[in-house]
């Protein structure tokens, strides 16, 4: 990153765009604690979260979707989702002596699977799903992970046009229910349709910021990144 500084507005969808290698995923890795910062600060809800571990960041309410699918391949779809919902699964003694009651969590999972139209895959192993299905389940898992801030790295990559519309609807509903979303997406039509504001990144720097309309008409952005992609 190179003197990169920006704010993400609460209860809004902000998109981060830029050419490959601009540093978009690096920003996500910094926010989610995967890469340690050499300099600078990351402030979340007024709290400095610089040099915080990924699990602590998740527990603060930041949920992340990776660019590459990272489902637990040897677990079922339901088990993958339960891991996101259940916050007490690492309490060893509680787990050893309690009877497994997951009814409320299971209800949440059923609702989410219905939302992404994958109810019938509940007991299927994650490794047996197609790429698009994996992507949907991973998005569902990210949403189920308790959060107030979602960071989504290419949420609709490899997803059919019909489901893209569905995901756009889901993201807009999440925004209505007080979530803040920062997303990276190469599909400009999708990005422009869901975002409230857009940040354009190039070589680790924010070169432009504004509403979708402003970005669409910015000659600087058109030259650096968009080209003719949204003109049609």
């Amino acid at each position: 990153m190179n003197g990169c500084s920006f704010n993400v507005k609460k209860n809004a969808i902000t998109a981060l765009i830029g050419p490959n290698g601009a540093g978009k995923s690096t920003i996500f890795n910094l926010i989610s604690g995967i890469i340690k910062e050499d300099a600078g600060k990351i402030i979340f809800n007024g709290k400095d979260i610089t040099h915080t571990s990924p699990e602590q960041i998740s527990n603060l309410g930041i949920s992340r979707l990776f660019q590459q699918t990272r489902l637990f391949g040897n677990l079922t779809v339901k088990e993958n989702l339960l891991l996101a919902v259940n916050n007490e699964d690492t309490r060893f003694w509680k787990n050893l002596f309690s009877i497994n009651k997951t009814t409320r969590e299971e209800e949440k999972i059923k609702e989410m699977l219905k939302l992404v139209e994958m109810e019938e895959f509940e007991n299927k192993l994650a490794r047996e799903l197609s790429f698009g299905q994996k992507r949907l389940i991973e998005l569902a898992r990210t949403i189920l992970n308790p959060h107030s801030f979602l960071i989504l790295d290419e949420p609709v990559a490899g997803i059919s046009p019909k489901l893209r519309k569905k995901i756009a609807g889901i993201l807009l509903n999440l925004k209505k229910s007080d979530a803040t979303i920062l997303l990276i997406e190469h599909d400009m039509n999708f990005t422009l349709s869901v975002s409230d504001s857009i940040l354009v990144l190039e070589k680790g720097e924010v070169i432009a910021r504004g509403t979708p309309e402003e970005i669409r008409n910015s000659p600087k952005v058109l030259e650096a990144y968009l080209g003719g992609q949204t003109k049609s």
Partner: protein
Amino acid sequence: MLILLGIYFILAISLQLAVGFAGLLNLGHIAFYAIGAYASALLALAGWPWWLCFLLAGVVAMIFGFLLSLPTNKLKGDYLALATLGFSFVVYVVALNWKGLTNGSLGLPGIPKPIFFGFIFSDNFNFLLLTFFVAFISYFIIRKITSSPFGKALEATRDDELATRILGKSTFKIKSIALMLSAFFAGLAGSLYAHYITFIDPSSFTLTQLIPIITIIIIGGLASLKGTIIATIILVLLPESLSFVGFPSSIVGPARQIIYSLILLWILIYKPRGFYGKVELE
């Protein structure tokens, strides 16, 4: 032979917990077995009651499991295997050279048979019942752990550690608990072995002792307790059938290793998930 089958079973399911469920390729498992055996033997020879020696064998091994988890927590795969293998050698060398404590290569003779509330497990049948009881309880506890949400967190850590952390789970804690539990049950198995044979020396805890245990969990299938039961029975009893056929003991010993190797090769080539494994060997 059936007593050894029970002891091997405890060793195998406890290793299965670390390797199959948590994805920790721990080649130092036999060191926990040794620590449990020595702890129990030394305490029993000092006059402590058997049941306390037995439990403390597990606890002492568990403490060493925790200590081993501290430097190895960030290691994965081959690197973790090498580090834990190193731990196994360190324990062996300590057992061999700390003569004041372990009596070195002369070993510790005269370890008393278990006495529990006045009942002496002196004959083989009673000891067999005791071993099977411990094996059953170990199996029950490990099955409860692995089928609980904690077990799923273990498997998640095995499949993708970073993704598990991103879901807010401390994989340091998860992996440490897995290694400690695995060591605890191996320590109990060590205690049973020490009180059964009544003599232990460092040669009882070399790397060659680990080979059948690793073979059992690979053949049974990673992350499968059912597979572990079946593979333990096959691997412990199959070489013994050679004795019944009439082969001399000078052949049965080496033949056992050859049989293990052949079965392992066959599984690796034709059935990389073992009998009932959920996870494919990489």
